C-alpha cells in the first residue's frame, strides 16, 4: 500500500493527522499548478483549500484506482474552471512580478543573469495567461506537473487523443506567443 493509500485509509478510519499529512504532501504542488492556471496566489490558495475540503468530504468515494493526487487534481481543476468561469481575473502584472521575484538592481554582477531569468519567467507566465483556460490547464499539467497523457485525460476527464491534440495546439499557440519575445530560432539554433 502506497503512502497515499495508507494515509487515506487512516483518514477514513479517524486518524486525525493522516489527512493533514496528505494536505502537507500536496498543497504546494497543487498550489503551484493552480497559480499558473489562475495567475493569482490568493485565488490559488483558496482553490487549494476548497479542493482539500471537498476531497475530504468525498474521501469515502475515492476508489484508489488512480493516484490520490490525480483525484485531488481533478477536484481542484474543476473548482479552478468554475472559479475562472465566474470571471475572476487570472494574472495581473503584479502577480507576474510576484511569481518571478523582484527585479534585480541595475549594475550588480548577477543582475544580467537574474534579469534574464526573471524576464523569461515573466514572459512565459504572461504567455500562459493569454492561453485559453483549457490550453492553460493542459500545459500546466503536462509541463509543470509532468502528468502523463493518461493522467491528464483522467484529471480533465477527456480522452487521451484529445489530450494529445489539445496539448499540441496549446504548445503551438504558446510558441507563437513566445517566439517574438524569446527568439526561439536563436535558441534552437544555438542548441
Amino acid at each position, binding site marked *: 500500500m502506497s503512502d497515499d493509500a495508507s494515509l487515506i485509509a487512516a483518514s477514513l478510519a479517524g*486518524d486525525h493527522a493522516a*489527512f*493533514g499529512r496528505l*494536505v502537507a504532501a500536496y498543497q504546494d504542488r497543487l498550489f503551484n499548478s493552480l497559480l499558473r492556471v489562475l495567475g493569482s496566489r490568493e485565488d490559488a490558495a483558496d482553490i487549494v483549500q476548497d479542493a482539500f475540503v471537498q476531497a475530504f*468530504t468525498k474521501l469515502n468515494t475515492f476508489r484508489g484506482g488512480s493516484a490520490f493526487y490525480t483525484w485531488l487534481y481533478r477536484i481542484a481543476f474543476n473548482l479552478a474552471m468554475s472559479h475562472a468561469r465566474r470571471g475572476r481575473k487570472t494574472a495581473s502584472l503584479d502577480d507576474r512580478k510576484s511569481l518571478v521575484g523582484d527585479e534585480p538592481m541595475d549594475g550588480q554582477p548577477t543582475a544580467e543573469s537574474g534579469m534574464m531569468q526573471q524576464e523569461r519567467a515573466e514572459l*512565459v507566465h504572461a504567455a500562459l495567461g493569454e492561453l485559453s483556460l483549457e490550453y492553460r490547464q493542459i*500545459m500546466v499539467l503536462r509541463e509543470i506537473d509532468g502528468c502523463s497523457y493518461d493522467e491528464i485525460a483522467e484529471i480533465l476527464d477527456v480522452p487521451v487523443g484529445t489530450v494529445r491534440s489539445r496539448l499540441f495546439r496549446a504548445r503551438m499557440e*504558446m510558441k507563437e506567443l513566445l517566439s517574438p519575445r524569446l527568439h526561439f530560432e536563436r*535558441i534552437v539554433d544555438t542548441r
Partner: protein
Amino acid sequence: MSEQEFQPELDDELLSAYLDDELTAEERAAVEARLANDPEAQHLLHQLRSVSQSVQMLPLEGVGRDLSGEISRRIETKNFGDGSPRNSGSSAVGEITPRLPIFGSRRSWIWASLAVAAGLMIMVLEHGEEKENKLPALARNDGANVTSSARDRDEPVKRQKEVPAVNGGKDESRTVSLGAPRSPIAASAPSPPADSSPTDKDDLAVRKLAVPAPSSGGAPAETAGRSDEIAASTPAPERHDASRARGGAMSPRSGYSISASGDTKAAMGKLGESGAAPRPETAAGEGVAETAKPEVFDTPGGGQAEREDTNALVVVHVSAKPTAIRGGEFEKLLTRNGVEFDEQDQAEGAAATSEKGKKSVARPTQSRDANRDTDARKNPVDIVVVDAPRDVVAACMADLQQDASNFASVEVEVEQPAESKEAAPAAPDVAKQLGSELRQYNRGIVSEKRPADNQFSASDSANKDRGQLKQESKQPANTRDGQSSQNNQPSQNQRASQANRGRAMRMQATENETQTLSDSQLGRRAAGFGGGGGEAEVLRRRVVQQQKPQTEDSDDVRVLFMLSPEAASPAPSKKVSD
C-alpha cells in the same frame, strides 16, 4: 510508410507526442522516419521543445504556510454549520466525518441570507394575516398560550360551525375561546385537574370551567374532553356581532373585546350557577357548553338559549273560534297586553333567523288570514311563543279566560323535556309554579290525554326543570344574558310603561304533525327539545331567536300557546268545570 501518407496536422501532433514520449512504437518509428528526412519537422520539434522547456523553467511556487489548519477549521465549519467547537480542539482533519458542504461558497451564504429574510417576511405576513382573519383581540392578547398552531385553531372552529342546530344542546366552547377575562372565572372555579398543563392558560381556564361539581356524576369526563377540544378553537367573531348590537353600541373592531367580556359574563353567570355556591348540582361543564349555543344559533345573551332548552315549558292550549282566527283576535290580545308580536313566515326557514335585529311588530297579513280558512284543516295549529314577564302572561291568560266569544277553551300544561328529566334531577319547580298560577285561567274543554297529574302535575323531574327555570329567572339579567347592568334600566322603564313588555312569535304545525305528534310532542318540538329533523331544527332556531331580547326582567317566562280552531281540536277533549 511514406511522408505523403501522413496528414500535416496529425504529423505535428505526433511530433508533440514524440516529444513527450507518448507514442506507440509504430508511431515513434514513423515520426523518427519523418524527422530523418524532414528539416521542417526537425525545426518544429525544436520549437515545441523550447516552449515546453520555457514553461518547465518557471519557478516553483509554494503556498508559504501549512494549510492543514485552515482546511481543518473549514471542514469543521462545513460539518457542523454553526462552527461548533466539537472538534475544535483538534487540528487534525481526519477526525471529522465527511459531509456535504453547506457554506462552502459565497453563493451558499447568499442563499442562506435570503432564506432567513424570507422567514422573517413570512412571520410578518402571517401576523398580518391573522389580523385580517379577525382573531379576537383578547384571545390574541393571551393567545400566546392559547393555541399551539393556526391549524389547531382553525379546525375546531370549522367543526364547530358545522355543528347542527339541534344537537342536544351540548355544544361546547365559546367561553373557552374568549380569552382574556378569564381569571375571575378561574378564581371562583374549582381547581383544574392534575393533568392540566400549567403553561396553557386557555386550556387551564377551560379545564377550570369544565371541572364538574362533585355531584355531577358521569358528566365530568365527557365535558372536560369537549373542553379540551374546544380549547384550541377560536371563536367566530362574526357570530357575536348581533348580540353586541343588542348589548350596546360599539364598533365592529371593539366588538371583539366586548364580545369576549359579554360571553365571559355569560360564562360567569354559568359559573355562578354551576361552579359557585347556588347550584352545586349542575356540572360546570354544562355552563361551558351552554355558552356555545349563541354561536350556533345567533342568539343573544349567550347560554340562555341553552338553558331554556333544558327547561320545562308552559304550554297553553287555546281553542279559538274560526272568526277569531280570521280576525287575528289572539294577536290583538297579546298586543293589548304589551306583547310585541314578531311575525316571521315559517317558510323563511333558518335563513330568516339571521334577521334577528329586526323587531318590527307584524300582524298576520290579509293573505294569510284568507288562507287560514282553507288551510285550517291542513294547518290546524298555530304555535305562538311568548316571552314576557309573569304578570303580562297572567294578563293575557285572564283575557283569554274572559273572552269566551272568541276562545272556546283555555288549558294550561307544563311540558318537560325528556332529557332534562335526567339532566337536572334536583331542579326547583318554577314551571310547575307558573303552571299552577296560570291554571286558574283554564276554561272550557280539557284534553283527556293531558290529565293534570300526568304531565301537568308536579312530578319530580318536572319540578326540577321548573326549578332550573326559576333559578334562571332569579338571576340578575346581566349575568344571565351577558348584558351589561346598564341595560337593565331601560328594560325596567319599558316594563313600567307597559309597552313591549313581551315578545311573541308565531309558528305553524302541519296537519300531519298533529296526526303523528301529540300536543306535548309538538310543543316539545317547537321548543327545540326533541327530534333531529330539519324542520324541527328550523322551529327550534326560530324559537331560540326570540330569547327575551329586550326584556331582561328577572321574572320573564316563556309560554307556548297552541292556538287551534275550535272544530279542529287536536285531541279528544272533555268538558271540565272551572
